[in-house]
């Protein structure tokens, strides 16, 4: 993203290690896990989102640094817990160590997050940030809990899916935007708007992930685990008659472990996605949510120029 800003983030993290004196192997694990999913050199996406939100309301880098790093560590811990639960993303460093150690690593990251935000000098702002992170953790866990519950459901409504996604993915992005606004000393109404904008960013990210993983389902566990992703929910709710029965039957048998997916099933799913409009549907929902995000940004009473970077994330497609 921005080499100079990244250097500030790295320096803040070095400072954390100096203060906390972690076991050298644990410190190495934290370092290799940070940005491990970054493929194009754009590091610290969570810290950067927090920074963008702070800048949007008129704050500066030094105001937001401890909160931005706290957010980055918090989100990484969530990712690790998620991957252990889903047994997914095997190429990640935390999936190449025993699960027990990966759990240790994630707990350590949560503690480092607390340590990072404790550097916020203003006591009131510190409490606001800590409260936001804790509430986010609870909301995300509720979403995750719901997701696992739905694995065993034959049918999930769109309302249930979007509620779960708001909690699971939206809560984290909402937290990054909210912390940025808090540390940028925005007014309460602006903080709430930024939080709402963040919820939508999370939903957008989840729609992209769900579609990508559905189209790449031989490599992902979502289909095997009968995860109620958006493509899956769409098919379960729109297919009718014999087609609906065949799809439900296949997802159920695969998730129960009673059946191994064959090449012909892969072809069938691909064909289904194409003929029933899985991609257009996900694209429609993506663009509707982008529009909602733009409407929220429009209402935020800050100079237009401050919103530019956030607007680019949800730009209109002509």
């Amino acid at each position: 993203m921005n080499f100079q800003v990244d250097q500030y983030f790295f320096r803040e993290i070095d400072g954390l290690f100096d203060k906390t004196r972690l076991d050298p192997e644990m410190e190495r694990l934290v370092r290799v896990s940070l940005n491990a999913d970054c493929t194009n050199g754009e590091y610290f996406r969570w810290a950067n989102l927090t920074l963008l939100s702070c800048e949007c309301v008129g704050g500066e880098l030094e105001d937001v640094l401890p909160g931005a790093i706290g957010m980055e560590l918090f989100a990484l811990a969530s990712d690790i817990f998620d991957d252990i639960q889903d047994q997914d993303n095997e190429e990640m460093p935390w999936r190449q160590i025993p699960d027990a150690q990966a759990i240790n690593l994630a707990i350590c990251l949560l503690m480092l997050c607390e340590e990072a935000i404790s550097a916020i000098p203003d006591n009131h702002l510190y409490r606001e940030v800590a409260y936001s992170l804790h509430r986010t953790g609870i909301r995300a866990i509720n979403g995750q809990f719901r997701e696992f519950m739905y694995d065993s459901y034959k049918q999930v409504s769109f309302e249930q899916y979007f509620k779960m996604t708001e909690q699971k993915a939206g809560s984290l992005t909402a937290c990054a935007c909210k912390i940025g606004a808090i540390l940028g000393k925005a007014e309460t109404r602006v903080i709430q708007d930024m939080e709402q904008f963040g919820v939508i960013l999370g939903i957008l990210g989840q729609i992209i992930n769900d579609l990508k993983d559905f189209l790449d389902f031989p490599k992902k566990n979502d289909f095997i685990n009968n995860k109620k992703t958006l493509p899956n929910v769409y098919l379960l709710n729109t297919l009718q008659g014999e087609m609906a029965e065949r799809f439900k039957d296949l997802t159920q048998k695969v998730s129960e472990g009673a059946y191994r997916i064959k090449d012909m099933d892969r072809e069938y799913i691909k064909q289904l996605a194409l003929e029933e409009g899985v991609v257009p549907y996900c694209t429609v929902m993506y663009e509707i949510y982008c529009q909602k995000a733009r409407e929220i940004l429009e209402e935020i009473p800050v100079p237009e120029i401050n919103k530019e970077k956030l607007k680019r994330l949800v730009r209109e497609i002509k």
Partner: protein
Amino acid sequence: MNYAAIANLVHEGVKNSKSLLTQLKSEEKKLNSNEITVIQNVLARNQVSGGTVAIEPPITPLLYWG
């Protein structure tokens, strides 16, 4: 937002683009004008591309939270 109405409209539109106008009329009350415009745009792009419309997120990984 009426999620089911959006899904049904997209589904019908993909299966039979000629019936989209009729469908739009019947779902009109359940959707707002912005939603209808998005659906029409995406389905038109899908038709032009021969069924290969894709989400076009901004060229930044910043959107890949979640």
